[in-house]
């Protein structure tokens, strides 16, 4: 018997033309913006902007290729903080299979998994010194300096550099199967491309087996331009087993609170803490459909500290609002790691469509 959950089988994978089109459009948008910019440093490729941020705080680490999860978390976004104990839950000896392809070896070097979010640092090492590894959004026509400070003294494009140094350019990609994930990466001096991958994967079991789809595609010069040679694409599914280090006992709010202006009642706030971040869940009910309808369903919540300042977002990607039924919703988000979960927290409800409309209440937590 078929099940409607099989509906995804009616679709194939995005065809190469579609994928190329997305990457090329993103690259073009980046370039157009960069042309408008008067900034001398033109780190135009998206991930390379990230690389610049990371390297600006830790060039030595980058050169010695020891970038780990905590380096990425601290370097990736301004203000993302984790607890000092976070280093104790970083797994450095991750059991894994399916790491090799003919073009490159993909290996998980570090992982953190707390039952909700997974963070992985994965090294991609070229199988031959003649291979130059590029991330999923870098193209041969981009400037070589876009590859980061290791190439800051060079001029010309990546393709020029590859030709002069007899390198074959490979585009690589890594995703966690079954999870939307965010990806950062940097190229180190020894030619290793280091990926940082973060996604949401819920599990209560002591260990979690995850699958990483790893792809390497060479560029070839054809019809006066570089295109990806999908006939020679090499891919592998890397299976890794992660320990679930879990989260602390949650704290919950005492009693519901009505946000009258928005026509909703917050039934419960739940905060769960791990060494890396705090997970927050806000369960709310629509009690006045007329007021709620005025927001076009566009309400969202944010937490404030005792000084009334917004508590910064945590390291996890994803989250969002889940609908339980037509009147009940759960908003999930991540906050920065906390030494101790608070006894009291301030919640602000905002209108997505009108930044001037908001309502704030304080919740006791136990």
């Amino acid at each position, binding site marked *: 018997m078929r099940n409607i959950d099989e509906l995804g089988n009616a679709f194939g994978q995005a065809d190469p033309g*579609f994928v190329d089109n997305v990457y090329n459009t993103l690259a073009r948008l980046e370039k157009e913006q960069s042309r408008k910019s008067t900034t001398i440093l033109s780190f135009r490729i998206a*991930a390379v902007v990230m690389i610049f941020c990371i390297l600006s705080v830790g060039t030595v680490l980058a050169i010695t290729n020891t970038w780990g999860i905590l380096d990425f978390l601290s370097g990736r976004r301004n203000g993302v903080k984790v607890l000092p104990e976070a280093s104790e839950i970083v797994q450095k000896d991750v059991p894994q299979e399916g790491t090799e392809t003919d073009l490159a070896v993909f290996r998980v070097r570090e992982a953190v998994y707390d039952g909700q979010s997974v963070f992985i640092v994965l090294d991609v090492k070229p199988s031959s010194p003649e291979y130059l590894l590029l991330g999923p959004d870098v193209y041969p026509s981009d400037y070589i300096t876009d590859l980061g400070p290791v190439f800051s003294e060079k001029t010309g494009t990546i393709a020029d550099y590859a030709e002069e140094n007899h390198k074959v350019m490979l585009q690589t990609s890594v995703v966690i199967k079954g999870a*939307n994930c965010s990806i950062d990466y940097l190229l180190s001096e020894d030619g290793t491309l280091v990926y940082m991958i973060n996604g949401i994967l819920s599990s209560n079991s002591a260990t979690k087996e995850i699958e990483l789809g790893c792809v390497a595609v060479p560029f070839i010069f054809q019809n006066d331009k570089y295109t990806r040679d999908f006939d020679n694409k090499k891919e592998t599914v890397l299976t890794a087993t992660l320990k679930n280090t879990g989260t602390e006992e949650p704290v919950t709010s005492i009693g519901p609170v009505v946000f009258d202006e928005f026509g909703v009642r917050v039934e419960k706030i739940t905060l769960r803490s791990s060494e890396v971040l705090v997970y927050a869940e806000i369960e709310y009910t629509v009690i006045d459909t007329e007021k709620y309808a005025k927001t076009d369903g566009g309400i969202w919540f944010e937490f404030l500290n005792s000084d009334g300042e917004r508590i910064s977002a945590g390291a996890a990607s994803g989250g969002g609002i889940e609908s339980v039924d037509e009147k009940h919703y759960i908003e999930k988000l991540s906050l920065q790691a906390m030494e101790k979960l608070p006894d009291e927290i301030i919640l602000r409800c905002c209108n997505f469509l009108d930044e001037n409309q908001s309502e704030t209440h304080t919740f006791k937590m136990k």
Partner: protein
Amino acid sequence: MTNDEFSSRIVAMMQTLYRVAYTQLSQSCDRDEAVQECLYKAWKKRYQLKDDRFMQTWVIRILINECHNIQRKRSREVPLDELPERVAPPGVDHELHDALFSLEESLRLPLVLHYVEGYSVGEIAKILRCPQGTVKSRMRRGRQELKNNLYGEDFLTCEI
């Protein structure tokens, strides 16, 4: 949202963008045009998005609009029934593919957004800008018609 965050999140949405475009447009050139326009608009307006958490549904909404624009344009150029039929790509469940794509788009899209992309009825209502009751009834009808298109009765056991 920084440029790198924007690009990373779009790349992470690659398969979703493809499936949403494929659900509405049978021609690959049209899908390419739709996603290109969608990315231009999303890029241009990315600073207007007040909360990054809504980026995915926001981008899907833009893509659906672009697909509709292209459908309108094509309908002026060529009668819709003269467009070449959609050919199932290799490796897919052909029977399911043909059954799904014989549904009206208004029934097909909510099914795909819910059962393939994992969006809740509430989220789909926001994406399609219609009441949740409408989404539910379309999904109910869509499932029924899909069931009929496949084997008649006794199929597709999962309820919303």
